[in-house]
């Protein structure tokens, strides 16, 4: 629990409380949280509740759960029980939000990370239930994975293996994780230059290594691992003054770090002692800015497009046209800045499915888009982006459409309709994929919208496509839209 205070821009920690309870141990072995631990959690959270009362914060807090509750089959019962008994409202944090907040916390603590991102960075967060890995280069997210490894999870999986053999099992299992990662990356060397780490595992590592600066070297990790392998629990406890619970996770944690460092090809990594609650605190009080987020996202989408050999020029042109329409038609659609991102993202990805099959390419585009996980972007955003990109194909009549899931609220669906209408126009304007139209003007006269443009050659395909794809626009916005082409050949 982190309680902080802002005076202007200055942030001050008022209190920091830690109470350990291995909910994950239950969840990762049994799949649910035991009743005993639910009661213990209530006891701990009652204490935290007292702290909220002390500072009058009952209406001003966030309480978040990660994998231990997220993955428990009785997670919602747990949350309900805690609410009834302590008054504390717990929320479940999605993995991509979790890593994004952790990442921002680290970014806030290590400002140099911007440079590292440009030159190739592996960011990892090893906690009790998950290993998060982000690889960034040139402001693109090359890879983002939340892997079900984590120190407590591993100790639970292998708890029946005799102690003497356990480290071998860890080595093999984490080796498998790293191989999976390797296969996901382009076969290019020297991708990663820097490595940065955070997470609860850092504290355990620091207790045994005690580095001078905020850097841990592979050499230190190897020599520590080799020493510890030969020691019994009591010896470790006496040598490093660790608690039993820390000793259990020590070996899997060390192996995880070593394997990841092998994979990254780095001899050391930077770390931050920044706690997750502190990062959460900064994030939810909107004190961490990430102005480059969308840029990173956009670059990543192009990178994904490349992976699927899309027509980059077409994607860029459609995106450009869509954005122009968006800004010129502001009065008509009254959409927000975030919706503009949705439009551009969908435009970039709309044809990526071609690599699989041209006929149903929009469905494949949908699947590709839907599979993207990007810290900082919610599941809902990704879902909407995927839907819009698939609906660019005019065969879908979106008014009575089952393609737009009805579980989305009507406001969201409306955004999808509006953005789809715009995307279809933009796509039509480069129907030939030849960039015959390079720019256009828009004129609005009462209920009529005129798109005026010049073309290098007469754009038969564009004109034809426009007529088909603009129908929906009229229906959604109640305005007729006309394409006027001035060509030297007309």
């Amino acid at each position: 629990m982190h309680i902080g205070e802002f005076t202007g821009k200055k942030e001050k920690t008022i209190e920091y409380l830690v109470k350990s309870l291995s909910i994950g141990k239950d969840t990762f072995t049994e799949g649910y949280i035991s009743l005993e631990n639910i009661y213990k959690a209530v006891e701990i959270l009652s204490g935290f509740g007292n702290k909220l009362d002390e500072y009058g914060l009952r209406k001003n807090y966030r309480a978040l759960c990660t994998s231990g509750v997220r993955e428990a089959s009785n997670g919602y019962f747990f949350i309900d029980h805690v609410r009834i008994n302590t008054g504390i409202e717990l929320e479940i944090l999605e993995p991509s939000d979790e890593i994004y907040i952790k990442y921002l916390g680290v970014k806030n603590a290590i400002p140099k990370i911007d440079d590292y991102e440009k030159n190739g960075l592996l960011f990892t967060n090893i906690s009790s239930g998950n290993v998060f890995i982000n690889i960034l280069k040139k402001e693109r997210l090359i890879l983002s994975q939340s892997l079900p490894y984590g120190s407590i999870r591993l100790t639970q999986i292998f708890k029946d293996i005799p102690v003497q053999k356990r480290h071998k099992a860890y080595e093999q299992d984490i080796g498998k994780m790293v191989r999976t990662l390797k296969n996901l990356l382009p076969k290019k060397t020297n991708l990663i230059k820097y490595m940065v780490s955070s997470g609860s595992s850092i504290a355990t590592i620091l207790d045994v290594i005690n580095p001078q600066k905020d850097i841990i070297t592979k050499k230190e990790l190897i020599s520590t691992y080799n020493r510890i392998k030969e020691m019994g629990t009591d010896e470790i406890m006496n040598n490093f003054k660790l608690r039993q619970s820390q000793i259990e996770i020590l070996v899997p944690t060390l192996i995880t770090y070593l394997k990841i460092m092998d994979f990254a090809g780095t001899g050391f990594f930077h770390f931050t002692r920044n706690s997750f609650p502190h990062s959460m605190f900064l994030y939810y009080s909107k004190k961490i800015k990430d102005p480059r987020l969308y840029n990173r996202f956009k670059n990543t989408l192009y990178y994904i497009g490349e992976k699927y050999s899309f027509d980059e020029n077409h994607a860029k042109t459609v995106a450009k046209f869509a954005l122009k329409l968006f800004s010129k038609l502001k009065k008509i659609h009254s959409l927000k800045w975030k919706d503009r991102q949705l439009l551009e993202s969908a435009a970039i990805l709309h044809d990526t499915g071609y690599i699989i099959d041209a006929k149903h390419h929009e469905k494949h585009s949908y699947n590709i888009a839907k599979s993207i996980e990007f810290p900082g972007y919610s599941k809902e955003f990704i879902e909407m982006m995927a839907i819009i990109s698939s609906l660019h194909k005019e065969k879908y009549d979106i008014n009575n459409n089952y393609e737009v899931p009805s579980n989305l609220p009507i406001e969201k669906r409306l955004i999808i309709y509006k953005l789809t209408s715009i995307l279809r126009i933009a796509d039509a304007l480069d129907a030939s994929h030849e960039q015959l139209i390079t720019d256009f003007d828009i004129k609005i006269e009462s209920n009529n919208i005129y798109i005026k443009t010049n073309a290098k050659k007469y754009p038969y395909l564009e004109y034809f496509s426009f007529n088909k794809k603009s129908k929906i626009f009229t229906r959604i916005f109640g305005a007729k839209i006309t394409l006027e082409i001035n060509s030297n050949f007309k």
Partner: protein
Amino acid sequence: MKSTPILNKNPIINREISWLYFNQRVLYTTLEQSIPLLNRLNFLAIFSSNLDEFYMIRVAGVKEQIEAGYKPANEGEIPPTELLTHINEFSQRLTDEQQDIFRAIKKESKKRGIVFLDTIEGEILEYAEDIWLQQILPAISPVIVGPASPFPFIGNKRLTVLIKLRKDLLTYYSVITSENLARIYKIRLNNNIFVLFLEQIIKKFIGRLYHGYSINDCHVIRITRNADLTIEEGAEDLLKTIEHQLSERRKGEIVRVETDSVLSGEILSFLQKKLNFDKGDVIYVKGTLDLSFLWELKLERASLTYKPLKQYIPADIRLNSSIFKRIMKKDIILYRPYQDFSLITKLVEIAANDSNVIALKMTLYRTNTNSNIIKNLIKAAHNGKRVSAVIELKARFDEENNIGWAKLLEDAGCIVTYGFMNLKIHAKSLLIVRKENKKIVRYCHISTGNYNEITSKVYTDVDYITADEQVGMDISALFNNLMGYSDFTNYKRISVAPAMLRNDLIKLIDEEIKNAKKGLSAKIIAKINTLTDKQIISKLYEASNAGVKIILIVRGICSLMPGLPGVSENIEVKSIIGRFLEHSRILYFYAGGKERIFFSTADWMERNMNGRVELLIEIFETDAKEKLKKILEYNLKDNARAWILQEDRYTKAEPSDTDTPFNCQEYLMEHPL
């Protein structure tokens, strides 16, 4: 006396023996002619109640060791059976001396009109008979032990009269216990005060109780029982456990039997059969039993007591809400009892009524009954502030008190927690959380003394009040830890036992050792109450050998042997026993000229380092530092109430021909810091 047992490598004075030395110093304080008569009687009383507690806890422990068949692992450590013999012999000798001194003081007091009567006769007889008939007789129920009336239970520290009766050639025993009776009876006559003890009156009229019997023998005895509370691990509800234990305490094993006269073999074996004790447990007082009752004399003779203590509050402190501004500006440091503890009481009261205060937290260890602090905590709760109290129920001999207050606070809506099952909370701190201009500001009070308005007039202690942010952070974390809210403790300004305090002390000593080895000046001054921790002692020996100059002012037990060639030549130990009980713990380290000053709640004992929550804090503020340095300086200068320990022997410090006598406590009374 026999030479003290010595450990080979690290010579150690046995702590029980060292404690008896301490009580001996208390006893010898009654020989100081400069101390007013009635106060000398008080020292006699203190000696007695000290010895009682020693038997109830320490001797009880030694006996438990014997019972468990404990054999010392360390060569040189004295086996418990041998130790018990030492203790009983030493106690017997001290008790004899105490009675001699009491007889001498009685003579002196007679000249001053306070007459302790040896025989009841003449005019006094009539008064005594009235007391007998009206107060004593209705309250006693003599039991003649027989098949129908078993030997009655004799409670801890109860004065009991044992009578041997004869009738028809048969022997009977009768027992009179003295529950609920006053011990001292004062008769004012002809400008004199005549003092009678309960047992004198009973003995005088005892013949009237046993018609038909002849009284063969009559002894006054007093039994001391094991009173050490041990909390069983896993006791679910600490409050209930202690309530239960308190009733059990009355029935602890017997550790000492005091008699006013030598028991015949027959009587002794009768008693042993009935009460189950060893021959060695008997102490013959040869005079008046249990002089702790001298406290009850309560005679108001200004000429025969200390001049009254004037307590000061620093001139620049106003006792209203402006005090917070004052603390914000500068730390406050007080030295009790010369300065007035009521400032702290008042601070709690101000906080309870201050609209900006949102929370109050406090540790309560030995609080007096009718404590204003508790009243104000309750008031604060009624005023809507979040009040949390961490109550240490295990404060020895205070458990009953604590339980009462705990319940009152709970009823008022305070959050009351009882600390840990296996750790006694000895740290004393008060935290006031205030909202000032929408910002959280924390005020901390940290002290070496308890929040007890009565003892604050008798104990010397340091009080420190600060608004320092880091101290506030640390004390908050400490409370979160004590209340079970959090396990995270990243203390920066304070050091806390059991986790780190000893290590931090050893680090500080190591620094001095390092400097001494470099040929730099290195010096340690420590004022503490007790020194028994073997790790610290051996570190101090190491420092002495490295050339660190060490001066220890240890009021009570000191297991370290100073001045041993090749071991502790650079260590001096002194002890001050005066009007006020020296209780503050102040530490000084030369630190290469930086002069670091700390104060602490912790004595240097294994018990405090391992089994208690204790606090150590360094003081940075120049004024406060200077004041603490002054206190040490005056203590070092004392040659009026100081004792010097050399190897294992204490001698009274005497001012040399050139020195003027200096009484540190008296000086501080006249010149408060």
